[in-house]
């Protein structure tokens, strides 16, 4: 059984289509990264999984339980770090954890949980006095209570310093080691790159890619990036490059003299030959291995046409 199964989910807010027929499967035991710029619809999908939001079309299940029809069964095996939450006003950190333990009918030791997320010293303070990062740790602690089979984390590192982000990553890996599936969203590529087995990239409500990091690299033709300087602004240059077989993406700098092309390794020479054939003088060129950063920008940036 899949941990998460999303089938044809759309969500419309008035005239805005926040999610457009998204299909997604997360297998048990995976660490799955959900990438996309802010506003791409990541939280909307997570909120549908949690039944905070009702989908306009389609359905989603968690371990086979429909998130809309049977939300409690879906949440029973879940640990959640939601987006846009606030801690309870009058409870201390420790009372938050104790509340989670009672609610999930678990038998964790609240102090051990606080220690694990690094706020043991502050456990007896009111959580409303916590910084954003501490609150984030506290809610992660609540999510970890009861050894959930699936962790749903919405932007888990927001509010954390680099040190905290690294700790978060260690906890994610430890939970996965224990057997939990982890599904987390982020707009920061390097966090996803570091821990994820597979990633999905969401852009403007569309799922533009679902693959392993390696697979994404390969789909970019071995990760070759060509940076070509030409002798002047030539409107035909971009067209020519785009029409060359093997070219994935191509964009031109503002002054029109630098082309950035990602393509398969074999297509490199074809690009240069093509430009020459179109009467464009190549002044200089160099190649780079396309980083995931480039790839992410290519997938989600406005320059892709």
């Amino acid at each position, binding site marked *: 059984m899949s941990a998460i199964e999303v089938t044809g989910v759309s969500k419309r807010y008035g005239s805005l289509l926040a999610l457009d027929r998204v299909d997604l499967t997360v297998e048990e035991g995976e660490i799955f990264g959900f990438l996309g710029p802010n506003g791409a619809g990541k939280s909307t999908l997570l*909120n549908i999984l*949690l*039944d*905070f*939001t*009702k989908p306009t079309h389609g359905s989603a299940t968690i371990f086979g339980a429909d998130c809309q029809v049977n*939300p*409690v069964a879906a*949440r*029973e095996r*879940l640990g*959640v770090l*939601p987006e*846009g*939450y*606030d*801690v*309870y*006003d*009058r*409870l201390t950190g420790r009372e938050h954890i104790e*509340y*989670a333990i*009672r*609610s*999930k009918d678990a038998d964790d030791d609240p102090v051990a949980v606080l220690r694990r997320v690094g706020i043991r010293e502050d456990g007896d303070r009111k959580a409303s006095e916590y910084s954003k990062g501490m609150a984030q740790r506290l*809610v992660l602690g*609540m*999510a970890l209570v009861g050894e959930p089979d699936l962790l749903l984390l919405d932007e888990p590192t927001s509010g954390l310093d680099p040190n905290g982000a690294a700790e978060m990553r260690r906890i994610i890996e430890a939970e996965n080691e224990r057997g939990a599936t982890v599904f987390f969203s982020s707009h920061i590529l390097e966090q996803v790159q570091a821990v994820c087995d597979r990633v999905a990239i969401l852009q403007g409500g569309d799922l533009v890619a679902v693959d392993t990091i390696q697979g994404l690299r390969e789909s970019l033709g071995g990760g070759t990036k060509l940076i070509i300087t030409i002798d002047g602004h030539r409107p035909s240059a971009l067209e020519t490059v785009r029409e060359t077989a093997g070219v994935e993406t191509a964009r031109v700098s503002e002054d029109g003299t630098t082309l950035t092309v990602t393509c398969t390794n074999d297509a490199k020479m074809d690009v240069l030959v093509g430009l020459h054939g179109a009467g464009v003088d190549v002044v200089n060129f160099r190649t780079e291995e396309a980083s995931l950063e480039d790839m992410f920008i290519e997938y989600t940036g406005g320059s892709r046409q």
Partner: protein
Amino acid sequence: MRRVQWGPIAREEAALLLRARSARWLFGLLIFVCVAGGYLYPVVGPEPHTTARFSSFLIGWLTTLVPLIGLLIGYNAICSDRASGSLLLTLSMPYSRRDLVAGKLFGRMGLFAATIVGGLLAAGVLVVYPYGELVVSPFLGFAALTVGFGLLYTALGVAISMAVSTKQRATVLAFGVFFLFVLVWDVLEMAVTFALVRVGFIDGELPGIVAFLFAAEPGSVYGRLIAGFVDPAGSVSGTWYLNEWTALVLFCLWIVCPLGLAFWRFSECDL
């Protein structure tokens, strides 16, 4: 059928409410009013002094104070958590929205009910000792109806809290309900009667449907239940739509309908 899950929420709610100074003041005021009533009744009330007839003595105060407390502990139950986002934290745990509402309502109501029972018990002791008479079952009925009346207004407050998404709107609605039903309802009824008499439409008695509507206000329903079922000296109109049994039906509808409608709306909305 899933096991009932709202227990931990109710416990949390009750604990949080007890930590709020305003709630402690309101509950303290209620107990004070009950005790003061129990102290004054043997002094100024008409003979004979029994716990059954005591109900009519206290009811005037209760019909003002109980709605106020019920609305105040109910109206921010859902909407303030929703505005701040801590609602998402609760619903991230294995609770349905129904568990959430039930836990909020019963947690807050539990404390309120305990206060009502405690206050009336203390008042009952003052009434009976040294010269009064204890009439057990009407007094129990009085306590039960008053707890029900508290539940009615707390449920109304929670319904308001579910129906709107901001605390400001909930505040306006809750005070609107209090103002209309508790403060100006009687004046309104007199004004309508007076106006209809002046234009010669009626001669003193409101037409049936209008009389029914004015009598359907929760406080008036509660009053007829006390007069009909508890106080041996009380009397209720013989007309079927104004008698105590119709009042009992209205009482139940007041508890169930606003809450049900608001929950139906709340359960379908995006948070």
